[in-house]
C-alpha cells in the first residue's frame, strides 16, 4: 500500500505522541514499587526502561523535524544553486555518462512502496504486590514491552528513511531534468574541465627521474639493488662512531668477553642442576652434587657474568658521559683480574665443600669475597676520579646510578662479612638485608645507570624526564634499603622488622613506576625504530620485565601471599624474571650496542634474533609453569597434605623448567657466537676499503710524476 506524504507524516507524529505520554506516566506508576526494598532492582530497571523510551521518543521527534525542514528547504526557489552544488559532487565516470547521454530522456518517478506499521503497544500491569513472584513477572512483562518499543522505533526509522529517499528521488528527477533541458554550453564546459581535473594522475616518477641519484649530502647508504625474499627481518646497521681510545676499548672488550664466558659456564651449571630435579641420579660425584652446584650457578652468574658485564659497560659509560679519559686503564685491568680470580677460586671452594655456612649468595668465604671487594674498590676509585676531572658541568644521571651502585655494593659486602653482628639470628637479619641489597642496590641500580645511557643513545633522543630519573634514584635508596627481611616473613626475626620490609616493598612502586614511565615515554614517537633495530627489542623486553618483575616482588611481600608462595619455587621463578628478564636483557642490549662501536664489526642479525627469541621464550617456559606449579604446591601445604604429594605434583613443572632452561642456555651459546663475530679479526675483505688502501699504497710508492 502506498501512502501519500501527509498521511505518513501524520502517522509519525502520532507515534511520537504515543511514546511521550508512555514515558510520562511510567514514572508515578513505578515510584510505588520503591516502597519495597525488594523491588529496588525492579525500580532501577523500570527507570532505565522509561529513560530509554523517553530518549527514543525524543530521537524520533528530532528525526521527523529534520525531515520536515529538509522538505521545506527543497521547496525553496534557489534550486539552481543547489544543482550547481550537485554538479561538484559528480565523479569523473558520472560526468562521462552525462556528457554522452545528454540528449537521451531520463527515467524518473519510481514508485515507492511503503508498508503499514505494525508496532504494538502492550499495557503495563498496574497492580503491584511486594512479592518476588510478581516482581519477576513484571520484569518478564517489561522485557517484551521494551522489545516492542524497540521494534516500533526501528519501523518508524525505516519509515523516515523511506520518506527521505522519496524526497531525494524527487530531487534527483528534477536534477536530471535540469541537466537534460536547461544545461547550457557553459555548464558542459564546466563539467569537461572538472573531468579533466579529476582524471589527473601523477606519473609516479616526479621525485626520481631516470638518471643516477645524485646525493650531495651523503644521505643514501646501503643501497639494495635486488630485493631478496626477506627470510630474516632486515635491521639497521650500527652507526660508525668516532673511534674511542684503543686501550680503553681493549679493557671494555676484555670485561665483556670474560662476562660472556662466565654466562655460558654459569648457565651450563644452572641447566645441569635444573636437570637434576628431573633426574636426581644423573651423577653420584660429590663435587657435582646439587647442594654444591646450586651456589656455583648463582654465584657465577652474579659475580662472573652480570657483575663483569655491568662493570665493563660502566668502564665505557663513565669516561664517555664525563667527556674525559678514564683515570687509570691499569686499575681497570687489576679489577678484572681480581674479580675473575674471585669467581674461579670461589667456585672451586664451593665444589670442594668449602663455603661460608649457608647464607644465599654469600656462599663464597671472606678471603674469596675480599678479592671481589678489592676489585670493586679499585673500580670505584677509578670512576670517582674520572668523574672528578670531567669536562662536562653536570654529572649525567648514569654516573649517579653507577657510582652509587658500586659504593652500595661495597657497604653491603662489608656488612655481610664483618663478624660483629652475625651471632644467632643476627646472621639471618643480615642475610635478608644482604641478599636483597645485592640484587636491588647492586645489579638493579647499576643496570639502571646503563639503561639511562644506552636507551637514549639507541633511540637518538634525550631521556624523557631527567627529574623522574632523580626521583627514582632517591626513592629506590629510601625504600629498597629496608625491604631485605621480607624473605623471612613469619620467621622469628622481630615482627616490626618484617612489617617495615613489607611496607618498603609496597613503596617500591614509586621508583619502579617512575623508572618504567621514564623509559617507556622515551620511546614516544620512536616506536617505529623498534622494528628495525636489534638492540631495542632487548631494551623493551627489559623494560617490560622491569615493571612486571619488580611489582611481582611487591605482590609477593604481603603476608597473605607469603603464606602461599614462600619456600616454593615461586621465588626461583621471580628471581629469574628479574635477574634474567631485567638485568640480562638490559646487559645484552647494551653489549650489542657498544661492541660494534668498539670493534667496527657486527654480529649476524639472524643469530642475534635467535639469541633474543630463545632467551625470551625460554624464560617464559621456565617461569610460568614454575609459578603455576608453586601456587598449587603452596595450596597443598596450606591444606596440610603429606609433603611428598607436593613433590610428585611438581614433577611436570620441573620438567618444563628444564625445557625452558635449555632454551635459555642455547640462547647463550648464540650470544657467545655473536660476541665472537663482533671480535673476529679475519672478517670478510671490504672491497671498497681495500681498493682505497691499495691505491694509497701505489700512490705512495710511485715516483712523483714529472710535471
Amino acid at each position, binding site marked *: 500500500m502506498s501512502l501519500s506524504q501527509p498521511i505518513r507524516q501524520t502517522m509519525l507524529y502520532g507515534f511520537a505522541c504515543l511514546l511521550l505520554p508512555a514515558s510520562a506516566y511510567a514514572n508515578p506508576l513505578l515510584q510505588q514499587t520503591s516502597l519495597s526494598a525488594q523491588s529496588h532492582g525492579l525500580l532501577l530497571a523500570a527507570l532505565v526502561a522509561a529513560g530509554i523510551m523517553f530518549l527514543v521518543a525524543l530521537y524520533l521527534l528530532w528525526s521527523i523535524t529534520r525531515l520536515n525542514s529538509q522538505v521545506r528547504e527543497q521547496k525553496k526557489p534557489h534550486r539552481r544553486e543547489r544543482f550547481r552544488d550537485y554538479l561538484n559532487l559528480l565523479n569523473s565516470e558520472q560526468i562521462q555518462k552525462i556528457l554522452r547521454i545528454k540528449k537521451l530522456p531520463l527515467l524518473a518517478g519510481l514508485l515507492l512502496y511503503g508498508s503499514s506499521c505494525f508496532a504494538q503497544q502492550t499495557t503495563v500491569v498496574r497492580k503491584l504486590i511486594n512479592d518476588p513472584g510478581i516482581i519477576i513477572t513484571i520484569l518478564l512483562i517489561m522485557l517484551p514491552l521494551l522489545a516492542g518499543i524497540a521494534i516500533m522505533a526501528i519501523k518508524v526509522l525505516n519509515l523516515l528513511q523511506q520518506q527521505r529517499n522519496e524526497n531525494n528521488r524527487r530531487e534527483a528527477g528534477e536534477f536530471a531534468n535540469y541537466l537534460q533541458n536547461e544545461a547550457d554550453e557553459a555548464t558542459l564546459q564546466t563539467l569537461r574541465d572538472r573531468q579533466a581535473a579529476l582524471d589527473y594522475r601523477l606519473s609516479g616518477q616526479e621525485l626520481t627521474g631516470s638518471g643516477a641519484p645524485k646525493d650531495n649530502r651523503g644521505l643514501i647508504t646501503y643501497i639494495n639493488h635486488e630485493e631478496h625474499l626477506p627470510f630474516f627481518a632486515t635491521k639497521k646497521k650500527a652507526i660508525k662512531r668516532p673511534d674511542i681510545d684503543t686501550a680503553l676499548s681493549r679493557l671494555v672488550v676484555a670485561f665483556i668477553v670474560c662476562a660472556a664466558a662466565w654466562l655460558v659456564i654459569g648457565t651450563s651449571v644452572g641447566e645441569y642442576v635444573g636437570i637434576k630435579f628431573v633426574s636426581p*641420579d644423573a651423577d653420584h660425584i660429590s663435587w657435582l652434587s646439587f647442594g654444591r652446584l646450586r651456589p656455583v650457578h648463582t654465584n657465577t652468574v652474579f659475580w662472573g657474568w652480570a657483575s663483569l658485564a655491568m662493570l665493563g659497560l660502566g668502564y665505557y659509560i663513565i669516561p664517555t658521559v664525563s667527556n674525559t679519559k678514564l683515570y687509570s686503564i691499569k686499575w681497570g685491568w687489576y679489577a678484572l683480574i681480581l674479580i675473575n680470580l674471585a669467581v674461579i677460586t670461589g667456585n672451586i671452594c664451593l665444589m670442594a665443600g668449602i663455603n661460608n655456612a649457608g647464607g644465599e649468595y654469600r656462599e663464597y668465604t671472606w678471603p674469596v669475597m675480599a678479592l671481589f671487594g678489592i676489585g670493586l674498590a679499585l673500580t670505584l676509585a677509578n670512576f670517582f676520579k674520572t668523574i672528578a676531572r670531567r669536562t662536562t658541568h653536570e654529572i649525567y644521571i648514569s654516573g649517579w646510578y653507577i657510582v652509587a651502585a658500586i659504593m652500595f655494593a661495597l657497604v653491603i659486602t662489608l656488612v655481610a662479612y664483618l*663478624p660483629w653482628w652475625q651471632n*644467632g639470628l643476627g646472621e639471618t637479619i643480615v642475610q635478608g638485608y644482604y641478599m636483597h641489597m645485592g640484587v636491588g642496590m647492586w645489579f638493579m641500580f647499576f643496570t639502571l645507570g646503563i639503561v639511562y645511557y644506552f636507551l637514549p643513545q639507541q633511540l637518538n633522543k634525550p631521556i624523557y624526564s631527567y627529574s623522574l630519573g632523580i626521583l627514582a634514584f632517591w626513592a629506590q635508596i629510601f625504600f629498597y634499603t629496608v625491604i631485605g627481611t621480607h624473605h623471612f616473613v613469619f620467621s*622469628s626475626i622481630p615482627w616490626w622488622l618484617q612489617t617495615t620490609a613489607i611496607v618498603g616493598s609496597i613503596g617500591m612502586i614509586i621508583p619502579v613506576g617512575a623508572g618504567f614511565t621514564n623509559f617507556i615515554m622515551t620511546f614516544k614517537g620512536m616506536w617505529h625504530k623498534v622494528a628495525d633495530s636489534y638492540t631495542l627489542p632487548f631494551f623493551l623486553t627489559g623494560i617490560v620485565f622491569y615493571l612486571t618483575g619488580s611489582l611481582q616482588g611487591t605482590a609477593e611481600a604481603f603476608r597473605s601471599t607469603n603464606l602461599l608462595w614462600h619456600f616454593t619455587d615461586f*621465588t626461583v621463578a621471580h628471581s629469574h624474571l628479574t635477574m634474567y628478564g631485567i638485568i640480562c636483557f638490559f646487559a645484552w642490549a647494551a653489549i650489542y650496542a657498544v661492541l660494534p662501536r668498539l670493534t667496527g664489526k657486527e654480529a649476524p642479525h639472524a643469530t642475534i634474533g635467535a639469541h633474543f627469541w630463545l632467551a625470551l621464550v625460554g624464560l617464559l617456559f621456565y617461569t610460568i609453569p614454575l609459578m603455576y606449579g608453586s601456587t598449587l604446591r603452596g595450596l597443598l601445604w596450606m591444606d596440610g597434605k603429606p609433603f611428598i604429594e607436593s613433590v610428585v605434583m611438581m614433577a611436570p613443572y620441573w620438567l618444563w623448567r628444564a625445557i625452558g632452561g635449555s632454551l635459555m642456555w642455547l640462547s647463550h651459546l648464540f650470544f657467545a657466537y655473536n660476541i665472537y663475530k663482533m671480535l673476529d679479526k679475519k672478517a670478510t675483505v671490504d672491497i671498497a676499503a681495500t681498493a682505497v688502501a691499495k691505491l694509497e699504497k701505489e700512490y705512495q710508492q710511485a715516483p712523483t710524476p714529472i710535471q
Partner: protein
Amino acid sequence: MEFFNNHKKLFGTALLLFVFLTIIVAILPAMQNERKNKLLPGAEPLTADAAKGKELFIANGCVACHTQQVRNVEMDKTWGSRPSIAADYAGSRRTDVWRNTATLMGTERTGPDLTTIGTRQPSAEWQLTHLYNPRILVEASVMPAYPWLFTVKPQPGMGEVAVSVPEGYVAKGQKVIATREALQLVAYLASLKQTTLPDGAATPEFLYKRTVKAEGGAATAELDGEALYVANCQACHQPNGEGLPGAFPPLKGSKIVLDDNVELMISIIMNGYEGRIKEGYGPMPAVGVNNQLTPEEVTAIMNHEKSSWGNGAKKVDLEQVKKVLSTLKAPEQP
C-alpha cells in the same frame, strides 16, 4: 642545582643515606637481637659427632632445599609443635675463622623442614639408607644420593655399621658400610629437636588457622587414613606395605596388623617396638607420641593398614582405641 653537580656532595649524600638506613634496618636489629636472646635452659649443646655432622650439612649445601624454621603459621604445624623463636638460634655462633654463623634457616623447602627431624624420624637405619639413596625409601624423592659417605665391601669390619640396601643398588655379595662422616651427619640430624619452653613461658601462637570445612557432621566424618599413613608411616613401611627387607618389616600380611586384639598394634604405633631386632629389623621409633597423633588419627591409620594391600582384618572403632590408649604408659624418656 649546585648540589647535583658536585660529585663529592652528591655521592656523599647518597652513601650517608644508605649507610644510615643500613644501620637502622640491619646492623642495630642484628646487634640487639644478639644481646636480647639467650639460649633456652633446656637446650642441649651439639655432641662432638653432631657438630661434625653439622659441618657436613653445611659443606654439602643441604640448606639449599631444607629449611630449619617453623613459622608461626598453621601450615607449619607439620614441622614442629611450636613456632621457632629467636632463642632457638641463640646458640649459633661463628663456625670458625673462615666461616660465618650457620643458623641454617634456609629460604626454600624443596625438601621437608628439618627443625624436628630428630623427633619425626629418629631411626638411624632409615636415615642411613635414605642418605645412601633416597629413592630406595621414597620413590618420588628428588633428593641427591650421597654414596660418597659410604664404602662398599664384602664384609663389615669390627664396629662398622652396615646399611640395609636392596638388590640393584649395590653389587651382589657386597655390603654398604657407613663411613664416620655418614654417622656424624645422622647424629646431627638426630640432634635436631625443638627444646621445650621453660615453665611459665608463653608459647607463641600459630596464625592463619585452618577453617574446618565439615563442621556439624564432624563426629561421624572419618579422617583420611591413607593420607595419614603417607605422612607418618610410609617412609619406612612403603606405599605397598611391604617395608624394606632387612630394615623395615612389612605390614602386608603382618600378624600384628591382622590380629583382632589391637592392644599390641596401638602400643607399637604410639611407643615404638624393638621386638623384631633379632630378625634383622631395626627398632621402630615412638611415631605416635613423637608426632602427637590423636585417637582419631590412630584409628584412621589402623583401619587403613588393616584393610589395604590384601589385608582383610576387622576394623577398629574409636572407643576401642581410646580405651587401649588410656591404659598405655608413656615411653621411657632416653
